[in-house]
């Protein structure tokens, strides 16, 4: 029983990390209706910039803070460039063209990040405690083993979700973002400048990507395969619904737990390695019952 809880907890925490990446997707889809396939590349780019700046600035007086500020500035500039060069020319195109354009952005960012900063694997160390601890020793015999990094990641992700929730609900810009997410034309007609809003959304998604990149990077090391994390976050998206922050969180938990549990309990019978596609199949199963994800907006076809 203790082993089950251990697997479940580690799955839930892995799921939290997936939710972090999925959050970026959701933010952009909610506000600009674009399925941003470049989110993974943005995670990689942010992490790469941060880790290399840490290296370059390590002898200055506040390396982490400085690198953070410069990386945030770069993500802002990236958001502005994307809005100007990609979103504005493609403003009324069907969703699939925009999706293809974000695929193009992903390729571009991959190449650009590696041109700027090189393509080695970099270790990221900003003081997140590593190692494992035993918890719940009184409930289960011997306690349950959890990794400290995962605990820290869960706390950070929770803080991020709460911050985003406050941002969306309480601030003026958050209200404007929600208005744009509801209806672009209506928002424009009451005077909300769409272009600024898109820059803000892509910046916030870039910051979420930075947090995700830092956490994943300290777990795995900053390397090219970080952009493939996006592919793992997609089942989270389709399970939770493309437009829902809550869906990203809960979907992440379900997918994370499901993946780990299936790998441990079903994996040995079918040759192992099923965690790559199990998440997708799980999400597909949910979709058959609720075609727009658990918390997604129901799409109403008017004929």
């Amino acid at each position, binding site marked *: 029983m203790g082993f089950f809880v251990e697997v479940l907890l580690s799955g839930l925490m892995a799921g939290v990390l997936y939710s972090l990446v999925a959050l970026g997707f959701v933010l952009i889809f909610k506000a600009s209706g674009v*399925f941003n396939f470049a989110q993974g590349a943005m995670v990689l780019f942010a992490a790469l910039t941060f880790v290399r700046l840490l290296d370059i600035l390590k002898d200055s007086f506040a390396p982490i803070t400085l690198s953070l500020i410069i990386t945030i500035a770069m993500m802002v500039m990236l958001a502005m460039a994307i809005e100007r*060069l*990609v979103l504005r*020319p*493609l403003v009324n*195109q069907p*969703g*699939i*063209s925009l*999706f*293809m*354009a974000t*695929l*193009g*952005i*992903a*390729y*571009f*960012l*991959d*190449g*650009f990040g*590696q*041109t700027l900063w090189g*393509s080695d694997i970099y270790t990221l160390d900003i003081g997140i405690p590593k190692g494992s601890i035993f918890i719940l020793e009184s409930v289960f015999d011997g306690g349950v083993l959890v990794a400290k990094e995962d605990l820290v990641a869960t706390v950070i992700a929770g803080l991020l979700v709460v911050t985003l929730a406050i941002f969306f609900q309480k601030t003026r810009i958050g209200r404007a973002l929600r208005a744009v997410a509801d209806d672009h034309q209506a928002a424009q007609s009451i005077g909300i400048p769409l272009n600024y809003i898109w820059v803000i959304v892509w910046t916030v998604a870039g910051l979420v990507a930075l947090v995700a990149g830092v956490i994943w990077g300290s777990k795995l090391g900053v390397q090219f395969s970080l952009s493939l994390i996006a*592919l793992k976050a*997609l*089942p989270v*998206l*389709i399970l939770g619904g*493309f437009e829902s922050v809550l869906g990203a969180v809960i979907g992440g938990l379900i997918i994370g737990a499901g993946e780990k549990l299936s790998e441990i309990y079903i994996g040995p019978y*079918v*040759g*192992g*390695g*099923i965690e*790559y*596609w199990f998440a*997708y*199949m799980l*999400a*597909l199963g949910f*979709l*058959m019952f609720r*075609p*727009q*994800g658990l918390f997604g907006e129901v*799409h109403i*076809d008017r*004929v």
Partner: protein
Amino acid sequence: MFYREAGQFKTSYKADQAVFPIFQDRIFVAIWLFLGFIVVPMLANEYVFRAIFIPVIIMALAAIGLNLLVGYCGQVSLGSGAFMAVGAYAAYNFMIRIPELNPLICFLLGGLSATVVGVIFGIPSLRIKGFYLAVATLALQFFTDWTFSRIDWFTNYTPSGSIAVQPVEVWGFVFDSPIRKYLLCLTVLVIFTVIAKNLVRGRIGRAWMATRDMDVAAEIIGIRPIYAKLSAFAVSSFFIGVAGALWAFVHLGSWEPLAFDINLSFSILFMVIIGGLGSIVGGMLGATFITLLPLFLNQLPIWLGINMSTAMVSHLEYMIFGGLIIFFLAVEPLGLARIWQITKEKLRLWPFPH
């Protein structure tokens, strides 16, 4: 001046419904066929066949197949790499387990296996739409990646997990030289293009296009969605499966499951979008563009005389590729087929401006 319909009167319904009603169009197609079947084999060298013509032709077949699904029926599918893999592995298994079968029949059987898989994985499309369907088809992609790497029966228990095949041999005629491979692929492409063109002009094609435009309305006027969507998946996966079998046997010669991964799916989707959704010619143009672009980008630093490391070249290639995709989508969102259409319209008026 030259490209006029004036004076071409049709005297029967059959003539009126021809695929190329304008006489100049027929001459144009005849010239291309002449160039393709007779001129190119005489003039091209081996490298050009291997690196340019054969991949472009096979990818054109795959792109036409995916266009039938995405462009004509509107179901976004990111699983085309998986269909190619199924076609290739199925053809391989048929070929080695039933040695009496003609290899061409094995290719068709590979396509049929891809059809079965396509219909099964097309069933979610009856419930799910849009991007949800696109991500759901990724499930197929990853599932086939795993299946062909883990289940050893498909690779006939080879220790390395990769498969190597002999050149295709049909009734003693061995397709080992590049010219023969090229002619084989070109013949297959021409036959399948004719099939595709006639499908989209017929009842099935119209059912697909109605489903694409507004599937609820199509259902109301009597087009059964199960029939339209699953037939699109079936035909499209047949085309892509045959293309996969050709890709593996004729172009690659030896392959492993990673040869059909998600990057291949994205390439084929790029070809369809850049070439133009909903257009047979577009599939071919897109395939040419996307296949030739990396080759071109690879050679560019050499032509410009700039010395840079191969890693830098490949990074720049990514950047330019991504940038070109965005540029292309912004400039002509309807793809190369639209540019071709505009050219034809201007040709009709030439030399007059309007």
